[in-house]
């Protein structure tokens, strides 16, 4: 099967978010503040890109309370993992000189 580019994921910050979440185990969630330090983004920027990824069904955002403190946690969905894997395969195809759907 020919791998395809994913323009939504290819945006630099969204790519970092997806990569960071992909480094976790399946169903593992990471706190918003931790994700922010991993990808090096501001609150607003990270929030906006997470909303885009959530709309696409690539991430799941959960809001709850840890004691009295509000907490936002983000996890990658199986659709997101599949999409990232496909985009990575596409990038590898480019490196290996395999004709891609965009070429």
């Amino acid at each position: 099967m020919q791998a395809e580019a994913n323009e939504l994921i290819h945006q630099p910050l969204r790519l970092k978010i997806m990569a960071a979440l992909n480094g976790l185990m399946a169903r593992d969630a990471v706190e918003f503040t931790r994700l922010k330090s991993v990808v090096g983004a501001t609150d607003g920027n990270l929030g906006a890109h997470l909303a885009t990824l959530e709309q696409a069904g690539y991430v799941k955002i959960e809001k709850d309370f840890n004691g009295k403190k509000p907490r936002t946690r983000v996890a990658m969905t199986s659709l997101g993992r599949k999409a990232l894997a496909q985009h990575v395969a596409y990038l590898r195809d480019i490196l290996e000189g395999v004709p891609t759907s965009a070429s």
Partner: protein
Amino acid sequence: MPISTQEAADTLQEIARTQRRASILRGYERGAPHLILWGIIWALGYGTCDLAPALANPAWLLLDVAGMTGSFLIGRAAAAGKTGATTAYGARFAALGFTALAFVIATYYILQPHDSAQFGAFPALFIALIYTVIGIWRGSRWAVAGIVLGVCTVGGYAFLREHFMLWMAVVGGGTLILTGLWLRRA
């Protein structure tokens, strides 16, 4: 969306770098409460060795069991909120504790240390080795903790033999607690 070979290579590198960074920070986050717990246990255990040597053996037995139970519960709680795989993760920490304990006991049996300072120094050096090895692969903060712990243990053994247990209670336990706090802030 045409992507050049160079851009593809850079993007793949960025993905690998971010995944590694996320994984290291996750390791710090998960390891921190264990270090703080064992720092407290060391402070109590080595402190008992110095202040009430007759109670040292039962105290260590009790503290080791408490530490392994605590590690199991911390591991389980961390997994409960995030993966759902609670028991396996907690059990892994408990197994790690039992393995380390079995190794230390077996080494004592074979090498038969002569005095209490040797008894006290060996587990600390073993833990320092483990942290340094973890640090080589999984994040430099672990290595810093291992090296500081190892140097403090050997330094105390060489220059403060009279009060080695007290040294280990304060400096050894303190190093673990401070490292735990440092990892949590990463």
